[in-house]
């Protein structure tokens, strides 16, 4: 088993209570940061650690924090983005369910570093039971004196709130999250101004993913340089990967950045290979919005080097032969799965979740979904495949927020790598309809 920093104590019974959590070294970082360090020192440690945002974009967290505007007399906010809705990603859910105090500890230290006196955890509407877990943990932390006025006698005040969303994927986009938190319709805002200048209620705001905030705890405890020793190059530390699909042992794994993809899929410590001794057909390494990779490009890059679980290695080859680490939603497809059906499924998700604000995404995602539906259900034509590729190009980069790109990339990549399969669906309509792609047929159910 690899190193475990975030999930070190996830198996300990009662770790969700503050007493057990503190027995296992919990809240050390709060004491260390508030008593011995200045906010600037905490930011500096995070910068040294090389921690990159774990929500998908991989933007350096320390740099994001350093961009925060600090005008006099204006409150600043830290928001935790727990609106984890990317298909294939469920790491934040596991972390919050098992070790809620780790997130709260991270929130206290991060808020202290940013000078925020009011912070919020924006949680996905479907995670209502986790809302209860977090609220209970916050009440415990408050009773123990880690939240409220004058924390640990340091003179620093912090209130922490949990706000549930309505279950919209788009509210995971940081400006839509802010709109939603303000009580408005969750439409992304135009950028600039960025949230670091004008965010919640028009005040400077930082929005971070759950895992990024949790990772601040070991960084403060052990020092940023120690954290940066794990990993390769600019991909430092450990990463939570939610593995799903046709694997022997799917689940949430904490990996050191830089283990090979081959080890992750086939290694005994990790997923233990493809279920039922089948062959791998394709893999989506970072959640539904990243490009899909065919089997021969999953473990090796186009240049023949081993592909590693890092931001850089997974993106090697650009979109032509690479993908992205994204949010770490690692989905594996075996040889019996249908790429067309899967692509349609993703497209259906994005068509459903588009906010409808800007035209390319609103109309384009729906159009793609309909064309893919026809291809999958045996009424498509060969020119539809080219049409899809063209719609893609017109959406990509022309939208307000990245949802348009996220909808366009998986479709573009599926056509790029599996064009024959799309064509086969058109030329062999009946067989395509008859073939049971390892899925329970509706007629059987």
């Amino acid at each position: 088993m690899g190193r475990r920093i975030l999930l070190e104590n996830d198996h300990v019974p009662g770790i969700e209570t503050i007493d057990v959590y503190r027995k296992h070294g919990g809240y050390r970082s709060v004491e260390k940061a508030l008593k011995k360090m200045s906010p600037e020192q905490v930011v500096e440690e995070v910068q040294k650690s090389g921690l990159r945002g774990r929500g998908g974009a991989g933007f350096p967290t320390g740099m994001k924090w350093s961009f925060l505007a600090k005008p006099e007399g204006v409150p600043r906010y830290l928001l935790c983005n727990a609106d984890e809705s990317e298909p294939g990603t469920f790491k934040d859910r596991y972390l919050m369910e098992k070790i809620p105090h780790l997130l709260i500890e991270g929130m206290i230290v991060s808020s202290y570093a940013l000078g925020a006196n009011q912070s919020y955890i924006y949680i996905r509407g479907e995670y209502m039971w986790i809302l209860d877990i977090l609220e209970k943990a916050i009440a415990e932390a408050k009773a123990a004196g880690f939240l409220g006025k004058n924390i640990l006698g340091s003179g620093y005040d912090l209130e922490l709130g949990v706000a549930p969303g309505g279950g919209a994927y788009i509210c995971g986009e940081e400006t839509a999250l802010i709109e939603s938190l303000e009580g408005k319709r969750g439409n992304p805002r135009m950028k600039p101004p960025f949230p670091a200048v004008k965010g919640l209620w028009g005040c400077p705001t930082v929005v971070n993913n759950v895992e990024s905030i949790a990772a601040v705890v070991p960084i403060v405890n052990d020092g940023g340089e120690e954290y940066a020793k794990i990993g390769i190059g600019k991909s430092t530390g450990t990463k939570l990967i939610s593995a799903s699909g046709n694997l022997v042992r799917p689940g949430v794994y904490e990996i050191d950045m830089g283990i090979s993809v081959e080890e992750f899929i086939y290694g005994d410590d990790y997923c233990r290979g493809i279920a039922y001794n089948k062959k791998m057909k394709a893999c989506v390494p970072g959640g539904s919005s990243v490009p899909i990779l065919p089997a021969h490009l999953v473990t090796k890059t186009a240049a023949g080097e081993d592909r590693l679980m890092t931001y850089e290695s997974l993106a090697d080859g650009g979109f032509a032969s690479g993908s992205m680490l994204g949010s770490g939603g690692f989905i594996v497809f075996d040889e019996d799965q249908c790429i067309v059906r899967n692509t349609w499924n993703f497209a259906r998700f994005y068509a459903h979740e588009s906010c409808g604000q800007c035209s390319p995404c609103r109309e384009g995602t729906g159009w793609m979904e309909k064309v893919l539906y026809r291809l999958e259900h045996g009424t498509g034509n060969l020119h539809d495949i080219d049409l899809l590729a063209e719609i893609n190009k017109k959406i990509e980069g022309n939208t307000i927020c990245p949802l348009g790109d996220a909808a366009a990339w998986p479709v573009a990549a599926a056509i790029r790598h599996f064009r024959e399969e799309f064509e086969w669906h058109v030329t062999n309509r009946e067989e395509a309809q008859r073939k049971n792609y390892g899925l329970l047929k509706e007629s059987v159910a």
Partner: protein
Amino acid sequence: MVKVTIDDVQIEVEEGTSILNAARSVGGEIVPPAMCYYSKLPGTGGKCRTCLVEVAQGSEKDPRPMPKLVASCSTNVMDGMVVKNKTSERVQQNRGGVVEFLLINHPLDCPICDQAGECHLQDLGFEHGGAKTRYEEDRRTFDPIDIGNKIKLHMNRCILCYRCVHVANQLTESRVHGVLHRGEHAEISTYIENAIENDFSGNMIDVCPVGALTDKTFRFKSRVWFLKPMEASCECTKCSGKAVVWMFGNEIYRVTARKDKYGEVEDQDGKTGWICNDCRFDKKDVSKWNVEGPRKIDRHSVISQGHYLSPRSGAQKTIK
């Protein structure tokens, strides 16, 4: 003041001006089309994506080009910025793509639409649209609904520019929601109907770039190009009283605010010249207006056909 180059035209504008407004200060071909941006309504813009332009040089200090096309209505100019609109093939292609997206679910019922002849989507489709649609699916449909007793909403024609929502925002504190649902299913909601009991609600019709919001006192009465737009004024306690009356013979068919060449309501006496519902819907008697004279209409507009050309002008001669 900052220097900016748009399609090889160099101009100086105030700092903080958007690219679109900088282009409008020159006018002519270099102005990108705008379906959702409305300079008189704060908060509009950025949604329709028809005003996308290419920034070939970010600024004097940082000459790197911007990787993506940017919405010119919501991107401010920088000193030394170089913008390409008409001269960029990429912009033209992507704008064509946006127009295609706007049209796939549009009913294209121009022959029975009251907006025909003064519709921005028509102009846009004429310039950038394809000759044939590639959309094979059924178009989405909604039932027409009433917004108050004078306005009809045809959601089928709507392009979700949000302009009317912003008008509602200006008029009332009690707007609950302007738009319901998400994505393709998004629609301008009846909540506007419930929220607006206001003397200025008719201005939603004027800001609508398409035929989604129409005047119930004028619907199906006449095509706009059969009418003569005349500048007229009246004594009104609620608004400036300065409007355009659309006449056929000596009858007034409809009343609108005075709009400039970008379809935006002009300023009157230093304020945006919104007109009140009384002037718009109820004063259809010519004796209530002081008709000042014909409204100047762009000669390329279908509305100017046959009305303002003197018998000796060239156009008339060629038609015979």
